[in-house]
């Protein structure tokens, strides 16, 4: 019993230290840059249809929207009401937020703009959302609290230290908790997705991927014939399930980290080729950057 208490206390101390100890800014800065780019791509794909999805004369007029929405959510419509000026605001703030994140200009304010936009369109018409939107909204929220402009930004570029290959000590350290929360968020995504899949018969009998590959909704680029066979489809089904359930645990152990991340990238690249799912693979893969360690001269075994 005493041993268990000691072990619990030891884990608690290590967890506290993991959250509290400042980190190298390069991982979150690189994430912010790439994430900003993906936000802009996602937003540009949404742009041509914004009037149709979100305007008062669109497919979801205010009367219908009111009848299906409840609960308080922070978003631009709280200020504008059901007014199409919200779309103009979203366009302005979305562009400013995306560019600001990409270039690292006022990154916290930019993240706030991007989060406000993603939150607003999510509220106004949730029927058009894809899973990538969820990850974008969450990523923007926690980037509001991160010091992500320290590297790979216009300001650090002008200061001449945007891409310097120095040690973490030399580049200075930043609070870790926003990065940690996003790392854990990625693990929860995989864990939840894996557990939900595990509940389904097609995932347990190995036919799920085969069924999805038959559907026109998701068909994308041509694939070799051998993939569309029961044996390979079963293999891919079990591989997906195992990967999603294993990632949240293995990624924290340095000896497995590189292998897990590379496997994940290959999985998402394969899905991006085979399946027509707009931005999800790109956005989820962007979270992998948060696990990179940039210590070029570190003796730390966890170095990526």
């Amino acid at each position, binding site marked *: 019993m005493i041993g268990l208490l000691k072990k619990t206390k030891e884990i608690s101390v290590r967890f506290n230290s993991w959250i509290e100890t400042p980190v190298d800014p390069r991982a979150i800065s690189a994430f912010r840059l790439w994430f900003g780019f993906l936000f802009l791509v996602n937003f540009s794909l949404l742009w041509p249809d914004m009037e149709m*999805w979100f305007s008062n004369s669109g497919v979801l007029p205010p009367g219908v929207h009111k009848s299906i929405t409840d609960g*308080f959510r922070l978003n631009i419509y709280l200020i504008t009401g059901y007014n199409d000026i919200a779309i103009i605001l979203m366009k302005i703030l979305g562009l400013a937020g995306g560019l600001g994140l990409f270039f690292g200009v006022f990154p916290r304010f930019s993240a706030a703009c991007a989060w406000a936009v993603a939150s607003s369109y999510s509220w106004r018409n949730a029927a*058009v959302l894809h899973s990538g939107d969820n990850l974008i909204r969450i990523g923007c929220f926690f980037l509001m609290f991160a010091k992500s402009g320290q590297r790979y930004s216009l300001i650090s570029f002008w200061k001449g230290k945007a891409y310097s290959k120095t040690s973490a000590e030399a580049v200075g350290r930043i609070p870790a*908790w926003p990065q940690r929360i996003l790392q854990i968020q990625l693990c929860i*995504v995989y864990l939840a997705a894996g557990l939900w*899949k595990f*509940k389904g018969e097609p995932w347990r009998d190995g036919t799920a991927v085969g069924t999805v590959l038959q559907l026109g*909704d998701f068909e994308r680029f041509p694939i070799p014939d051998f993939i569309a066979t029961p044996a390979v489809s079963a293999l891919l089904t079990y591989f997906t399930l195992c990967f999603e359930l294993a990632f949240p645990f293995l990624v924290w152990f340095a000896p497995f980290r590189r292998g897990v991340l590379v496997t994940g990238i290959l999985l998402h690249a394969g899905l991006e080729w085979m399946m027509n799912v707009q931005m999800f693979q790109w956005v989820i893969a962007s979270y992998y950057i948060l696990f990179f360690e940039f210590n070029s001269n570190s003796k730390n075994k966890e170095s990526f």
Partner: protein
Amino acid sequence: MLRSVSRFLRSRWRVLIVTGYVIAVCASSLPGDFLPIKAPINALTARILVAANLWQSWDMFAPSPRSDDIKFSYIYQLADGTRTEVSVTDMVSMPYFERWQKERWRKFFNDHLRTDAEAYLWSPYVNYVVKDLRSKSIEPVQIELVRYWRAAETPINPSLRASKRSTPWMKYMFYRWRSSESQR
């Protein structure tokens, strides 16, 4: 006592935020069978997650992926009886980029508007289509919303992928709108 609590909060607020967030998100997104205390935690935290737009669900293709091909069309009829069918979400027939760009169309029309459970979307959509057609100087007297479906055949086979197989589509007209002139 208060001073020590305040000192603890000041020194450990980051850990508390991370821990609280992890518990709240696990409770909102993990299946209940794997987390028996999901409901009481959700009762405390769900509103906060929703208000901050941190709500989430990760049940993509789960527990069971859909097993039907789906597409959606509308048919408009002019006063002279001419009928034109406009395919909205026949994803396989679209070029690669358009298919990718219209992912949200697939979501809205195939996953939501098509279903009887979301019938409240039908009338607003038809009103939108009427406005759109009128802006192109087309005056419809009748519009029908039509859903198509066909089962994805198993076991999987390269010749049975959606772009190759010739399984016939089932079709159902689920909503009809007539202009007030045509009703007279």
